[in-house]
């Protein structure tokens, strides 16, 4: 079981095999818990978040299409949405972008380095974030990890809405350029 590819693991998840969930958790449980903890800041809530996320993944595994994205990106998207759901204190049904349907395949479609180890990926992504101008990084982090809307970020930072959106786009495009520029190194 430990040597299964993510694609094979996804097939077993879709077949409803509980052992596949155990394997998935062994692979990504700590990463999922780290993300939940980053968003909620609460250990007990993070446990609940990860539990609910993995249950959702098991229920909805048949929707996973390995041709459209990596398993780990999907897992993390589900964990993020579950964590934001808890953090914002709103039931999932009231937040259209937080239920699993909101995690459409396109949301997790492009993990360009599905075979890169988590530690290497972490260092790459952190380097990219650190390379951003502070004001752009702050907006990106508040949006992604804080789950704040642009209006909420504007209120918090006392910035016009248009400035928040502009910084968010610029930051995300720079991240994309940074990742794209490193793709050759990683492939090589």
């Amino acid at each position, binding site marked *: 079981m430990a040597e299964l590819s993510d694609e094979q693991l996804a097939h077993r998840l879709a077949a409803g095999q509980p052992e596949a969930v155990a394997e998935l958790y062994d692979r990504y449980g700590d990463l999922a818990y*780290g993300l939940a903890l980053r968003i909620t800041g609460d250990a007990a809530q993070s*446990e609940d978040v990860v539990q609910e996320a993995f*249950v959702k993944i098991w229920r909805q595994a048949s929707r996973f299409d390995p041709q459209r994205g990596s398993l780990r990106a999907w897992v993390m998207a589900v964990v993020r949405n579950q964590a934001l759901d808890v953090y914002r204190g709103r039931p999932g049904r009231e937040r259209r972008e937080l239920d699993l349907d909101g995690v459409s395949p396109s949301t997790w479609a492009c993990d360009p380095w599905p075979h890169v180890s988590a530690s290497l*990926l*972490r260092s790459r*992504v952190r380097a990219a974030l650190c390379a951003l101008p502070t004001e752009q990084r702050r907006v990106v982090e508040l949006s992604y990890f804080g789950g704040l809307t642009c209006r909420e970020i504007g209120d918090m930072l006392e910035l016009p809405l248009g400035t928040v959106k502009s910084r968010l786009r610029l930051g*995300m*495009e720079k991240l994309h350029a940074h990742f794209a520029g490193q793709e050759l190194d990683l492939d090589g």
Partner: protein
Amino acid sequence: MAEHQLMADSVAAYVMGGLEPEEEEAVRRHLRGCPDCAALERRLRGTMALLPFAVEERTAPPRLRGRILSRLAMERSSRRHLSFRLQRPSLIAVLAAAVLLAAWSGFLTVRVQQLQQAQARSYPILAIGAQGADGAEGQVVVMPGQEVALVELQHLPSPPPGRVYEIWVGASLEDVRGAGVFLPDAAGSRLLVLSHDLSDARLLAITVEPGPDGSPRPTEPPRLIAHLA
């Protein structure tokens, strides 16, 4: 051009889920007719998919894995119960037809036996020996043909620091396999869902083993035991 730039800014916010509902719908409509913005959306979604990997892995509490698997075992069990309820009228219809067509036939006898076998069976879990589990008790509920069993325990003393309770199932004390580790709550109680078909097991035993993961084999005589026959 400036208007399109504003829309591009909104596309980034849309991808991140940072728009108000009415503006989100406007961006969605725009994306259907603007290849440039649709391409931007795809790029930024790919970028966003990488952001969670910036966080540090944190060691999740060991109990979390068990919580998730127990929850899934309960879901599987409830699905099967639902499936049984939905099928029950047709079973009854089959039985009724069998009664009409071939009362007292061997077919009817077999069907009734199958239904009887599908009933959950409960067995007491009793403390044995003198190893500090006196007063503990519980029951195990076995559902034949289903890979799930419920274990309910009460009045369990806390195991020594660094040790956990481990459940074993098998044909005899010499032939058991581990079925999970647990700690009782503050009141000494615990309700567990085992993802095991215990139809063929003859006993369920509980020992105290080194934590947090238990042992591959029992390292002490059982403190509690249930005979499943």
